[in-house]
């Protein structure tokens, strides 16, 4: 009985959560003019035309944008998982001069709105001749610049019992050994979380990609999506929704595949 109730509650909740997705799919199947007529989820004159239109709206295939986004996101995931865990390990477990000050500095870097540092960062990347390349999106993630993930991992590492480190140290492990053998495996839920968020947030991140990318064939999904709308002209709403649905597919896949790993995480650790 309790189970049924729990399921009923979860399903009701899921419907509220799911409504936007259904609505978006429904909108993507409607002709442009029908999108703004009265709501309901069932399209009157369903059509796949929006998908065809959106896919090749600018003369460049939408597949190009998807591929560019995938490349950037994959690289960012790898960068964040690698370098944020290194940094977090040092902050959480190692003793060094200036630890508190540097930790404060790290947190401070996410307290300043990005809009005011953008111009100067643009100049840095320009001097490196990286404008209109993927590097400004990718390289920072290999330098642990996203303090969100560093702090996340610090918190997870700190809840790992320190006795495990001590045991490893007795077995002759150094700092690197402890990081590799103890911390990394036990950290996997946080690593997977980092991977998921890195992917999804980069996938949706718009401002940086707008500023740094220019050539049509180098553009990414969020820029292409905004191209369907324009305050000065008529917007292609149908195409926008169709391509929004298409761009959801990779993130949903990534989420489902990776979140399994969160759960699997514990099974692979030595704690069980």
């Amino acid at each position: 009985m309790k189970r049924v109730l729990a399921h009923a509650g979860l399903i009701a909740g899921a419907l509220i959560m799911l409504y936007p997705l259904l609505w978006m799919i429904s909108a993507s199947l409607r002709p442009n003019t029908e999108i703004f007529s009265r709501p309901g989820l069932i399209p009157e004159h369903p059509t796949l035309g929006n998908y065809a239109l959106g896919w090749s709206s600018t003369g460049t295939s939408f597949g190009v944008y998807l591929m560019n986004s995938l490349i950037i996101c994959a690289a960012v995931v790898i960068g964040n998982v690698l370098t944020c865990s290194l940094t977090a390990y040092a902050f959480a477990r190692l003793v060094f001069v200036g630890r508190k000050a540097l930790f404060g500095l790290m947190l401070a870097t996410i307290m300043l709105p990005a809009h005011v540092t953008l111009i100067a960062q643009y100049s840095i990347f320009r001097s490196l001749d990286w404008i209109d390349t993927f590097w400004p999106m990718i390289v920072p993630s290999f330098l642990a610049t996203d303090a969100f993930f560093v702090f996340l991992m610090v918190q997870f590492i700190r809840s790992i019992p320190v006795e495990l480190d001590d045991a490893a140290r007795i077995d002759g492990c150094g700092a690197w050994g402890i990081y590799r053998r103890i911390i990394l495996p036990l950290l996997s839920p946080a690593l997977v979380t980092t991977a998921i968020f890195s992917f999804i947030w980069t996938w949706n991140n718009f401002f940086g990609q707008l500023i740094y990318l220019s050539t049509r064939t180098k553009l990414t999904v969020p820029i292409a999506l905004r191209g369907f709308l324009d305050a000065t002209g008529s917007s292609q709403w149908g195409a926008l929704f169709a391509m929004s649905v298409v761009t959801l597919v990779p993130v949903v896949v990534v989420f489902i595949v990776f979140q399994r790993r969160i759960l699997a995480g514990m099974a692979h650790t030595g704690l069980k």
Partner: protein
Amino acid sequence: MTKFTRRTLLGLGAATAAATMLPGCSGGKSGPMRVSWYGPDPVTKALNNALNAWKASGGAEYTAESAPFDDYWDKLATQTSGNNAPDVLRMSMSYFSDYAGRSALKDLGSLGIDTSGLDKDVASSGVADGKNFGIGQSSISYSMYVDEAAVKQAGGSVPAQGWTWDKFAEFAKGYAGAVQGSYGSSDQAGNFQLFEVWARQHGTELFADDGGKLATSKDTVQEWFQYWADLRAAKATPAQNVSAETTAIEKSLIAKGKAPVQFGWVQQVTFYQPLVKSPLSVLPVPQGTAGDLKGQFVKGLDLWCVSAASKHPEDAAKLIGFLLNDEKAIKAIGILLGVPPSKKARDLVSADAGSAGARAIKYVEELAGKVGPSPKPWPKGYGELLTGFGRIAENIGFGKATPASGATEFVDLAGKTLGQ
């Protein structure tokens, strides 16, 4: 102490700037010419076709970039500030002086762009301080679009030259009363561009010619806000929250059949027309005295400019000339950038008579002799006034301000933004 902090900071700033900028600036690495514009996908497609024609005609190498209007300005400001502005760029009059006035644009005077075929007001739209910083892409005037069939069905009629403001108010109230659940017009209280026409009808330019300070009076602003407040009170225009929900073209009252009138720049009729069943007439906006169209003006409000730092000024100038004068380019662009700025171009593109585009072209051509002189480029800070005016009108609509206090607030804002 202050001094110390300041010097330290300056030092740090300079060090960072030096470290980051030197290699880029000194090298002068220059790839092909870059062309950049704003606009929705159809504009991008059209301009790419025009650029293909340029390539086919043996024009210099280029790369193209584009963004929707709102995003374009963030990117252009960053690029310009980072010393990496595109060579040829599309510029809106709303930001023209912000860029021209800060030496971000090149004087085109010596570059020999052929503007002989262009309407005179358009060719000189980008002239500031005696220098020509940009050339109009289109001939634009303000206008209103009227669903005449709807008006006739409600038992009204539409004067060929449009209404006077008084008659328009009467009409709007009458229509709203006659048609259940409908309004006489959308609310234009926050429309700063329409207000410019109103200001000119009240005896002065919106901005003074010298220095670009606000020239129109507080009373004129107040009367404007009052005019629309009265229409709103009479339910001839909708309540403010409805207006707030109907700003997008697709959700506009006229598209939803809830009002027979919409206002906008003339070429925008082509965006509304597909959403309205019967043909939309393009009319002059209301006047003070019937038939006196001196408040209106014809001008180029989107310009082709060359950035001051361009390393390809000659090629850039040639390309601009090509886009304005070449037949293939003209045909590729059509009316997507607005009503074409030359007689030749208008004749080339107005083939399908009866379309909304053709009506827009006809409107501009008929207006040409009747309008007043075109104003100087809008001053630095225009963008801020444009949004500020809309915000103040919204406050009045929600009852958070009165037309009088709103007018004071706007004049203060203009004083702060433009200098007293």
